[in-house]
């Protein structure tokens, strides 16, 4: 224990994830004076190693940094880029590479592990990498870019080691556009976590993703090409495999050399031996994280490391806590492939039973390991569908309470974990947060959503795999409190969107200021302002930039274009039904060429032009409007596109004119603002080439008229539209869509697509039918009138803007330099067009083109 009369000197060696957690924990608990010196040999502050792979999907290194507030605390000194090379136990001091000495009362070893390479010839060749640090992934990315340019073809990559990390790395290679192969020495992938059946199923799933797998392949050497860089692997059986990039993920080795040098007890297979209080054989020295060996094992997961950090911090501040031992639960972080393994996955417990569900066609394998009475959950394996992981993991060691089979059924079958988790169940294993702790955060600390709970308890802050479970627990608790999950739009309005719509309509208010004064408070935000802009657009119908309306619009609606990642915009002219004349195509092509815009066909059957600067939008649109184009409202929560198939006009199967109908519908509903975007599809026969049933309204031709489907959705939660009515005439179809849309616009929540609105509708689809065709609510005349007003008032937003100098003034790039382009823009050519330069390309300064072609105002 620390002598409370003087400042306790704590030195932490290694500035990784576990060290960071330790420092954070000590700072929040220490009530006596401490001074902490944190020494790390990487060139940066502690970062989220678990999230390392997200670097390849564009996450910047800075965004991986762990909470920096600990370094702002004046009790902490952080030294980066220096390595501790010696411990003098007698003098209680450490010495660093730069010859600095630090005295300690307590020394914490948190030096983590080394990533191992296979000890064969050539494993150090250029092009060979390990996968552990930000430096590793950055140099890998640089190498790949250079090598790709050198060889002028798609690169081939090999990942040696088919465990969790290896599969993650294979995904990362794929993200870099490299053909990747995973090479595994044993008989299956993830052999530490999966049994043979699970590993084989996983292999199928990985191969289906386009990643090749070689099992039972031992690499014996790596060969260089003429440039000296790696070019091939050779295997024990004489086989040969081409590879331009090789990543070793063959396991980790504890960095225990300091401890060995200081004659601390170390396990023969590596790792500094600790007791249950994290003390090493010298009680003044503690070891935590991957370097610590407890009970004969080191474990390469962050959760037990965090648990050790808490134990060590408790000890330092004079409390008592013990490390309960390792629970190994892991989930593969490779998009599109679900694998989880938890607890006693191999049924090593005496007389354990297992229950297995396997569906080779769907690529699903699930196994639960249970105690001999089939009551207590011991562990399990989930491959192909790991949706039950979040609810099962917290139950390890607890009674299942239901038939275990319920947990194994396909997703959506049975909602197994509907019951309550016991208080002691660990929901977030990264930060060891129990269901009870989350409940406390809701009841005693006033948290009302998963984000607040994250800030308060750290649940969900690391790997994120528990977030859905956290949400669920929070939801249950709020319901208990009678706060049935608030419908308030935001802090400025207590009403839901639907209530607000009615309130504004009845009060006949027409400005934001009047509405917020009467029904709300403050001056609004990014939630209520656009929602009111949409409501006012339907009820009043003014231009998006008229008067106060303009200040309510989301940035996209405000400039009538879609903001892109570098602050430029995309331009999408409307092409009703996907129909466009050759002359129209020429115009678009010419405009794109004159302004140096990147062009691409959208998923909505029209053309998108990217990279237009704010001050260019009016000149581009002037040319489009002159050529007869109108705004496509790709930016608004409004009608997007009406997708069509070619239909009876050309197609030998078509029974009705689907293009004609699509054009008619698109022209009718263009510009209609709604709680979320609206899409329609029209197919000329039941073959459904327009994929109409994935749209908010799907129209499909039959010999006897149109069938109308509603509530379809692609996107995040796909849903097929349901049949609302059949055999409609053109007029009946249009009237039914009018009513459907207006009823939705009046009653849906903010950002609720028709799919979830239909699902929640009182009376379901039958109720909807009664409203639309039998006028069961007596509102049809109202709905028809509202739509007629929309159709009558429609005016192209861009044409109107171009006529109005006040509106055009909004498109100055700078108020003091109206036509000067944003000087920070930079571009790189790719496949014959320009795209925004990445941060790295800007930094390397090699391939950058500043700004796009300058256009002359005509």
């Amino acid at each position, binding site marked *: 224990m620390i002598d409370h009369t003087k400042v306790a000197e704590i030195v932490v060696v290694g500035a990784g994830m576990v060290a960071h957690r330790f420092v954070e924990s000590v700072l929040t608990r220490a009530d006596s004076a401490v001074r902490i010196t944190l020494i790390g040999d990487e060139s940066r502050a502690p970062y989220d190693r678990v999230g390392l792979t997200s670097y390849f999907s564009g996450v910047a290194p*800075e*965004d991986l*940094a762990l*909470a*920096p507030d600990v370094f*702002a605390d004046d009790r902490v000194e952080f030294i980066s880029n220096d390595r501790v090379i010696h411990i003098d136990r007698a003098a209680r001091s450490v010495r660093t590479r730069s010859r600095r000495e630090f005295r300690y009362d307590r020394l914490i070893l948190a030096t983590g592990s080394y990533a191992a390479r296979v000890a064969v010839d050539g494993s150090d060749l250029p092009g060979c990498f390990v996968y552990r640090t930000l430096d590793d992934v950055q140099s890998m990315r640089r190498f790949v870019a250079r090598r790709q340019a050198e060889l002028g073809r798609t690169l081939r990559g090999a990942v040696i080691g088919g465990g969790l990390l290896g599969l993650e790395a294979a995904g990362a290679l794929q993200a870099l556009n490299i053909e990747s192969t995973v090479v595994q020495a044993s008989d299956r992938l993830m052999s530490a976590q999966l049994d043979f059946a699970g590993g084989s199923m996983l292999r199928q799933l990985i191969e289906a993703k386009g990643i090749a797998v070689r099992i039972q392949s031992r690499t014996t050497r790596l060969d260089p090409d003429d440039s000296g860089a790696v070019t091939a692997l050779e295997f024990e059986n004489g086989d040969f495999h081409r590879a331009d990039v090789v990543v070793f993920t063959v396991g980790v080795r504890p960095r225990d050399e300091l401890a060995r040098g200081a004659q601390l007890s170390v396990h023969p297979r590596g790792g500094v031996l600790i007791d249950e209080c994290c003390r090493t054989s010298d009680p003044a020295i503690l070891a935590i994280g991957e370097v610590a060996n407890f009970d004969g094992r080191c474990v390469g997961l962050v959760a037990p490391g965090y648990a050790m950090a808490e134990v060590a911090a408790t000890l330092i501040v004079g409390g008592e806590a013990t490390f309960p031992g390792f629970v190994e639960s892991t989930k593969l972080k490779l998009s599109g492939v679900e694998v989880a393994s938890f607890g006693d996955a191999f049924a090593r417990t005496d007389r354990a039973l297992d229950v297995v569900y396997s569906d080779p066609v769907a690529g699903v394998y699930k196994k639960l390991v249970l105690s001999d009475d089939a009551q207590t959950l011991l562990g399990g394996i989930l491959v192909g569908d790991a949706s039950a992981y979040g609810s099962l993991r917290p139950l390890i060691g607890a009674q299942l309470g239901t038939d275990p089979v319920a947990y194994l059924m396909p997703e959506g079958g049975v909602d197994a974990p509907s019951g309550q988790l016991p208080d002691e169940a660990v929901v977030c294993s990264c930060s060891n947060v129990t269901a009870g702790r989350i409940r406390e955060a809701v009841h005693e600390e006033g948290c009302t959503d998963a*984000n607040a709970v*994250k800030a308060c308890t750290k649940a969900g802050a690391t790997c994120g795999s528990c977030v859905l479970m956290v949400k669920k627990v929070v939801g249950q608790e709020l319901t208990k409190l009678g706060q049935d999950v608030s419908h308030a739009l935001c*802090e*400025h309005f207590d009403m839901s969107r639907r209530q607000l719509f009615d309130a504004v309509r009845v009060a006949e208010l027409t400005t934001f200021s009047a509405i917020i004064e009467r029904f709300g408070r*403050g*001056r*609004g*935000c*990014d939630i209520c*302002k*656009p929602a009111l802009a949409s409501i006012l657009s339907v009820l009043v119908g003014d231009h998006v930039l008229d008067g106060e309306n*303009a*200040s*309510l619009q*989301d*940035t*996209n609606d*405000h*400039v009538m274009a879609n*903001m892109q*990642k*570098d*602050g430029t915009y995309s331009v999408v002219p409307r092409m009703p039904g996907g129909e466009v004349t050759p002359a129209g195509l020429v115009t678009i092509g010419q405009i794109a060429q004159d302004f140096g815009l990147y062009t691409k066909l959208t998923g909505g059957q029209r053309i998108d032009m990217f990279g237009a600067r*704010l001050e260019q939008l009016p000149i581009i649109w002037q040319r489009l409007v002159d050529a007869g184009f109108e705004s496509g409202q790709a930016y608004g929560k409004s009608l997007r596109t009406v997708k069509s198939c070619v239909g009876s006009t050309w197609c030998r199967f078509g029974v009705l004119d689907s293009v004609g109908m699509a054009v008619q519908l698109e022209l009718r509903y263009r510009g209609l603002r709604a709680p979320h975007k609206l899409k329609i599809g029209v197919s000329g026969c039941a073959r459904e080439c327009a994929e109409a049933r994935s749209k908010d309204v799907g129209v499909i031709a039959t010999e006897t008229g149109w069938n109308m489907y509603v509530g379809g959705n692609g996107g995040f939660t796909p849903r097929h539209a349901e049949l609302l009515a059949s055999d409609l005439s053109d007029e009946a179809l249009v009237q039914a869509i009018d009513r459907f849309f207006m009823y939705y616009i009046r009653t849906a929540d903010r950002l609720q697509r028709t799919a979830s609105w239909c699902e929640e509708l009182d009376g379901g689809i039958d109720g909807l039918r009664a409203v639309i065709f039998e006028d069961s609510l007596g509102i049809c005349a109202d709905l028809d009138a509202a739509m007629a007003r929309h159709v009558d008032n429609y005016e192209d937003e861009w044409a109107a803007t171009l006529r109005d100098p006040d509106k055009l003034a*909004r498109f*100055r*790039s*700078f*108020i*003091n*330099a109206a036509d*000067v382009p*944003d*000087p*920070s823009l930079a571009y790189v050519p790719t496949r014959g067009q320009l795209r925004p330069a990445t*941060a790295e390309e800007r930094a390397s300064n090699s391939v950058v083109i500043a700004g796009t072609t300058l256009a002359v105002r005509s």
Partner: protein
Amino acid sequence: MTLVTEQSTPVRVCAIDDLVVERGSAVLLGDVQIALFRLPDGAVHAVSNLDPYSGAHVMSRGIVGTRGDAQIVISPMHKQVFDLSTGECLDAQGKQLRHLAVWPVRRDGDDILLLPGPGATNTTEEH
């Protein structure tokens, strides 16, 4: 808040009526981009136009509003929330906190003046 120590002369950037209430405007001073906001109460605030989260110069294009008593602008890119008078980030959307530099705004009759040079931040973190 630390004060700008560098001696520089204020530059006129626009007239008050060039600014739209509750909608930002960008200003270019040398290489520096600044976002100006005019609020309903007549106050004018100047913060960095660079969104520290996306790296794009877009703050002037965010929605303006309030959070509690604070006057705020919300990044149009990924919705981080900043206090217009201090530049402080009030909601990092789960990211690490990064703040906006702020510039003192001077009014001379109808003219809006800014001091060129780096803005001031009220914290030690990078922006």
